Every structure is written in structure tokens, then in C-alpha cells.
């Protein structure tokens, strides 16, 4: 059997080339794998959801009630045995995908793994994170309950506030002013076909390039096998560990998904005249917090184009993200980075990363200004000055704990 296939597909060559790739061993490398496995979980659970979901907001008769078809079909999914768990797992896996991708990015930043030759993979990674957020956003609206429909509406308005492009984007993604009867079918196609294809292709490229460039290695490998990649082969060693990770991931996720339904549509009901008080999903809270800090009086007109406070609130974070894309290109270097850099030996970079984290936390807190009774002035102070203070403190602490060593051997 194997030889039959081998003669035709040259399996043993593939084995030698790909399956014997060496994986350096360190637990921080698992963050990327957790991201991949949450994508895999999303695809697997998504298959089940997609064959039961009806992408339409036409009213259908369910019992005595008139309900949008999308909402009714999600109700049907929830009524299937294990259906609610699968839907909940899909929802949680989407959140975990974004959380894991973000933490993976922080790990790359802290260990300097974005440097030459891995700049391209850094950019692909950021693209992946952006597409993942888009996929999560488009998927959010599909059950069409009062909560998600309102939250999507807010998202639509923010997208529509983009000068010149806004209307065009609204037409492209929402089929007009959300919600029209075209909105849900269009969002469904984007969410179920195009975004998974794009994300899948980008993950493929991400992994292939990683295979080409090899992992960064722990420093001790320099002593054991300098100039080489020291590791365990993908097959069978690393694959087995990955199997363990996938099983643990699915196990933990299924338990949490079963116990906590992330989107109980019965509780919110179909969209009605009374709009619930909503907040956007948690990965948008920092943007939303930023939006809350911008006074409604901030607007201006450029070349006859109205620029409102919503767009200003989006513009500043977008510039930050664009800077993130360009970031590794701003540090040209002659040598290739082969070994992980210790965060403690690069206190400036580490402190900056901690500052960026503080910025995200502070602007997320800003989204809760009403609940925490914080004034706008205090928010500006918190979001702009807080991260700087935290970064400086982190720098001083790092310097105090890890005094600069001459000719540090670094292990």
C-alpha cells in the first residue's frame, strides 16, 4: 500500500523534506500552534453550523411568532443535541483565536523574532490578525438577535463614517445601510467562504515561510550545534505533542463552551423597536474606548469632505496599526537573527511592549467610563500618559533587576 502510493506520489521524499523538519523545543512556540488549532476548531464547528444556518432575515412563522429566518435557524441549531455546545465552541474559538494571535504577536515582539529575515512573516501575521478580527465581526451579526444586530449596526456606522470610502465599504460588505435584506446573505458569504479562504491561504504562507526560515532557537543551541537547527523532527515527535495540544485545547474549550453560552440569543430575542444597550465585542473595546474620548464637537472638512468624530476615533488607532506593519522594516540589520533574544537584555524594547499593552488596557478601561464614573479628562490622562508612565517604570525595574553585564553570555 505505502509503496504503491510512494511510487506515484514520492511520499518518502515528502517525508524527508517536510516531515523531518526540526522543531526547537520551547513552550512559547505553542502560542502560534494554539492559534492554528483554534482556526481548525472554527473550521470544523463551522462546517456543522453552515449546513444548518439560513442566511436570510425574511420573516418565518415559528409556532405563534414571526421571526427572522437567520434567528430561527440559530434557534434550530441550539435545539439540536450538542448543537448549542458546537455553536458556543465556535463563538469561544473565535475569541480565543484573536486572543492567542495577539499573545503570539507579543511573544514575537518580546523575543525580537520579527527581525531580519522574518519581517515578511511579521506582516503576514498582522494581516492574519486583521482578517481574523474581520471574520469575527462578520460572524457576529449572523444570528441576528437584538444584541448582535445592534452591535453590528454600531460597527457599520463607524465603517460608514470613513470619508469617501465609507458608503462604498457599506455597500460592499453590508449591501447598503445595515440591516437590509441583502446584509445577512452578503455577510454570510464573506464570513463562510472568502475570509476562511484568505485566512487559510495566509496561514499556509505563514507556516511555509517559517519552514523555510526555520524557528528562532533557544540560545543554548548555539553551544550544542552552532549554525544548525537543533530540534525534534516534526514526525513523529512534534506531531504527537501537537496532537496532545489539540486534544487539550478542544477539551478545555468544550467544557467552557458547554458551561457558558457566549451568545444566548433567547435572552436577547430578535431585533425589536427597543434597542438594548450594547458594547462591541471585547477586541473592539479599545477602539470603542478611544471613540468615547473624542468629543462630539471634533469634526472638520477637508476638500469638501466631512470628517466626523467617529472617524477621528478610528483614524488614530489605524495609524498605530499601520505603524505596526512597518515596524520591523524600520530596523535594518546586516545579520540574520538566529537565536531568541532575552527580553531582559533589551530593556527598551521590553518596556515599550509593556507600554503598548498598558495602552490597550487603558483604552479598554476608557470604554467603561460610564460604569466607572471616569471623566473624559481623566481618560485622556489615562490613555496617553498611563502607558508612558508604565513603560518608564518597567524600564527602570528591568534595569534594576538585570544590571547590564559586559559580554553577557545570555542564557
Amino acid at each position: 500500500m505505502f509503496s504503491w502510493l510512494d511510487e506515484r506520489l514520492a511520499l518518502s521524499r515528502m517525508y524527508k523534506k517536510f516531515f523531518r523538519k526540526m522543531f526547537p523545543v520551547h513552550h512559547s512556540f505553542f502560542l502560534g500552534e494554539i492559534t492554528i488549532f483554534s482556526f481548525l476548531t472554527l473550521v470544523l464547528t463551522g462546517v456543522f453550523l453552515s449546513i444548518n444556518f439560513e442566511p436570510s432575515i425574511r420573516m418565518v412563522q415559528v409556532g405563534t411568532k414571526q421571526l427572522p429566518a437567520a434567528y430561527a435557524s440559530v434557534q434550530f441549531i441550539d435545539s439540536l443535541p450538542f448543537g448549542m455546545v458546537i455553536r458556543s465552541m465556535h463563538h469561544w474559538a473565535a475569541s480565543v483565536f484573536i486572543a492567542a494571535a495577539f499573545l503570539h504577536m507579543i511573544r514575537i515582539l518580546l523575543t525580537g523574532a520579527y527581525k531580519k529575515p522574518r519581517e515578511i512573516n511579521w506582516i503576514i501575521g498582522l494581516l492574519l490578525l486583521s482578517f481574523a478580527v474581520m471574520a469575527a465581526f462578520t460572524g457576529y451579526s449572523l444570528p441576528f438577535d437584538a444584541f448582535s444586530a445592534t452591535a453590528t449596526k454600531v460597527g457599520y456606522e463607524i465603517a460608514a463614517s470613513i470619508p469617501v470610502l465609507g458608503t462604498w465599504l457599506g455597500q460592499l460588505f453590508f449591501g447598503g445601510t445595515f440591516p437590509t435584506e441583502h446584509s445577512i446573505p452578503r455577510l454570510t458569504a464573506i464570513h463562510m467562504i472568502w475570509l476562511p479562504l484568505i485566512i487559510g491561504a495566509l496561514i499556509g504562507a505563514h507556516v511555509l515561510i517559517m519552514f523555510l526560515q526555520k524557528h528562532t532557537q533557544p540560545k543554548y543551541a548555539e553551544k550544542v550545534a552552532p549554525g544548525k537547527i537543533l530540534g525534534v523532527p516534526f514526525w513523529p515527535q512534534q506531531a504527537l505533542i501537537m496532537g496532545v495540544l489539540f486534544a487539550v485545547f478542544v477539551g478545555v474549550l468544550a467544557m467552557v463552551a458547554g458551561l457558558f453560552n457566549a451568545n444566548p440569543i433567547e435572552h436577547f430575542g430578535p431585533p425589536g423597536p427597543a434597542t438594548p444597550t450594547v458594547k462591541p465585542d471585547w477586541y473592539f473595546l479599545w477602539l470603542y474606548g478611544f471613540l468615547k474620548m473624542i468629543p462630539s464637537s471634533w469634526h472638520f472638512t477637508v476638500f469638501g469632505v466631512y470628517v466626523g468624530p467617529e472617524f477621528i476615533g478610528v483614524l488614530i488607532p489605524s495609524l498605530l496599526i499601520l505603524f505596526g506593519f512597518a515596524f520591523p522594516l524600520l530596523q535594518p540589520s546586516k545579520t540574520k537573527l538566529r537565536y531568541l533574544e532575552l527580553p531582559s537584555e533589551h530593556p527598551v524594547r521590553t518596556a515599550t511592549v509593556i507600554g503598548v499593552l498598558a495602552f490597550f488596557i487603558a483604552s479598554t478601561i476608557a470604554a467603561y467610563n460610564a460604569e466607572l464614573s471616569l471623566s473624559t479628562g481623566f481618560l485622556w490622562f489615562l490613555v496617553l500618559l498611563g502607558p508612558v508612565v508604565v513603560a518608564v517604570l518597567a524600564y527602570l525595574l528591568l534595569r534594576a533587576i538585570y544590571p547590564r553585564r559586559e559580554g553577557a553570555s545570555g542564557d
Partner: protein
Amino acid sequence: MTEPGSSSSDRVVRIEVFLDDRPEAVQIVTAPPFRFQLDTTGLDEGAHSLRVVRIDASGGRRERRIPFHVEHASDVEVRGLEPGATVSGSVEVDVVVPPPPAASLPKPKGPPTWLYLLMTVLILGGIWVFFMVVPIYSNLVPAPSEGGSTASAPSTPAPPVDAALLKAGEQLYTSDCAACHKPSGEGMPPTFPALAGNSFLSDATATVKRIYEGSGAMPSHPSYSAKMLAEVATYIRNTWGNAYGGVSVADAAAAEPSASNTGAAPASGSAPAASSTGSSGASAGSAAGSSSETTPSGSTSSTSAATPSSSAGSTASGASAQPSTTAPAAAAAPSGGIDKATMDAGEQLYEAQCTSCHQANGAGLPPTFPALAGNAALSDATAVVQRIFDGKGIMPAHKTLNVQQLADVATYVRNSWGNAFGPVTAEQAAQAAPKAAQ
């Protein structure tokens, strides 16, 4: 490589070892133990094979071929010259020669156990303290009460409830509080807490203070007299299954000495800003004081820092200082002939759909949700109707409203809370929003 000789004819007399396809043997062993050393350091990396030929006493030969791989762990690393690089001039190249790998590197010392424990306790304890002890939360979070009974104050019997206060309180509650806290006292959590079963109410003084001074999204009510405070407090403490006892006018006056005792509310019809510092009677007093002054900019330093006052007057501080500036506009606007039924219908719609953002008192939650009280932008009736119908920014559209409903809401927001921009007729609304249902 050892072969136990069992019989004499089978006895091994010689072992020849060949490497790869080299013709000459690398090793010939003639006597036991048949052991030899193969030095792989001179071999290239990759596939090799070892051919072992066994020759026994009768001259028979048997061969075995053992394929193997050579990997050299120790190598040199070259830095500064990439393979395939084009160079000229003098190039600095670092060659790193490693020390021979130790069999086992020395175990580095990890952090001591007490540090693990300390950090764990600090992290988890810090979070607990933040949620349980920090004032904003301990103020907001009452321990979950048992069905809203008087369980929280068993030692002192609940004070008697004055029926007149309760009745008057219901009216005040319906007009000023029900939009957020709902007529059923369920509120709209998490922003607007439920009052039914809320044990925060067991503290009469704190309840009165919260009504008068506000906190966070809860607006302050500086126009309330001590009597009105007592009425509302009595009502919310003794309705929907609550039984925390009555609040007398004297109690309310003691809790909030700055509230007027006369019962005549100050003239400001528009609701003042939510006090952003959430705070003591002194700051509430100063806020109340400055609302009677006619400074065009914000009232207290904290609110003026928070919200730069704009000419549109769409901010909280603007709203509190607005009555003086909108008064002339109100006089000039055609304010006559507002139908009571229209206002009532508008109020109902407003309470159902608008209050969660713009608040029952029209103060909004600036800067995200602009104040409607004293907002000069309302003077344009067409724009108001269009904004309600089409939405804009985070303001949702209301395509389900018909022309009459649009006119009702527009009339209501233009003529409440001290606004006097005049009524909007159904015909005007139809012109402004031609797509709305008749």
C-alpha cells in the same frame, strides 16, 4: 560485531569492514573481541553505509550492509558573510567556534518557592481587593440581597412608611427615574442598575445622597427639595418587594443639607451635568451653586477640563449653563400651540427608544451621546426629523417610525427640559423624511 563460535567449521577467523563503496577495508579484525572504532568526524554529512564481511574457517563469506546517517553537531558559525553574498573591499567576518558541548549544562537556579507563592497571592489578592474594597465597587456592589427583604437591617425595625410621601414619590419616579430604572424597578443592567431587590437602598442616607448628587451615568438632581428627595427615596425603598422603610423629610434634609427645604425647585428646567467626580456634598453643592450663575463655560473645574465647551452647547457643562443662553432663542422661537397629546405621545416614544443614550432628562452622556437639553442644533426642525429617521454615526436610524411618530418625538425633544423650539407638524416631518410611512 561479535560472533560466538559454535562449531569449528563455522568459526569466524576474520571480519572485514568496508565503508561505503571504498575498495579497501577500513578495518580488519582477526580475533575476538571483534570491536573497532569508527571515526565519523572525517565523513561528510549525509547517507553512508557500512559493509561488514565475515569470513569463517571454511572460507565462507557472508556480508551485511548497514546504512546510516552522519550528522555533525559541532560546526562553526560564520557571521557577516551570507552564502552567495557579493562582497568587495575588506569584510569583517566572525567565525564562532563553540566549546565542546558539556554532557549536561549546570542547572540554573530558578526563582525560590516563596517568590512563586508571593507573586500568586499578590496577583490574585490584588484582583480580589480591587473588586471588593476599592470604593467605586464597594459603593456600587451591594452583597446580593435575599429577595429584597429587610434582611440587611434586622436589628432596627424599618421606619414607618408615610403613605402621602409614597404616593408623591411614585409620580416623581415615573417622570424622572422610570426611563432608566424602568417602571418595574428592573433597570437596564449593567449601565442602569435594578432597584428592585437592591440592598444599596437599605442605607437611607446613601440613597438620598445618590439621588441628589448622582454618580457616573446617574444624573444629579440638584433641583430636588428635601421633601422631593424623601418622596422618591420612600417610593423606591418600599416598592417592587423592597421593604427598607420610609424616609422622612427631616431624614432627607439631614442627609443632604444643601437641598432646599421649601420644595420650590430652582428655575433650571434642563438637567444639570452628571457630577463626574462622584463625590461629597461639597462638590454637589458647588455644582448646584454654579448652575445658578451664568458663566458661559463649564461649572466646576473637573467638568470644564473634561468637556471643552463648544458653541453648539452639546456637552454636559454646556447644558447646565445653557438656560441663560437659550432663553432668548426660546423667546424668539415660535413656541405657541403645542399639542398636549403630541407631547405625551412623543414622551412615550422617547422613553422607549431614546433614554438609554440621551437620558430621561435630555442630558445625554457626553461626549458620545450629546445632550438634547439646550442643544441649539434642535432649532432646525427638518434636521431633527432627518437625524431621528436616518440616524448618523452611532445614532441608530429609526426607519420603523411613521410620520406622526417622528413629529411627536421631534416636538417632544424640541420642547422639553427648558427647550422651546416650537412644535413639528406631521406635514413638516413628511417633508423632511419622505421615505417614512404615513
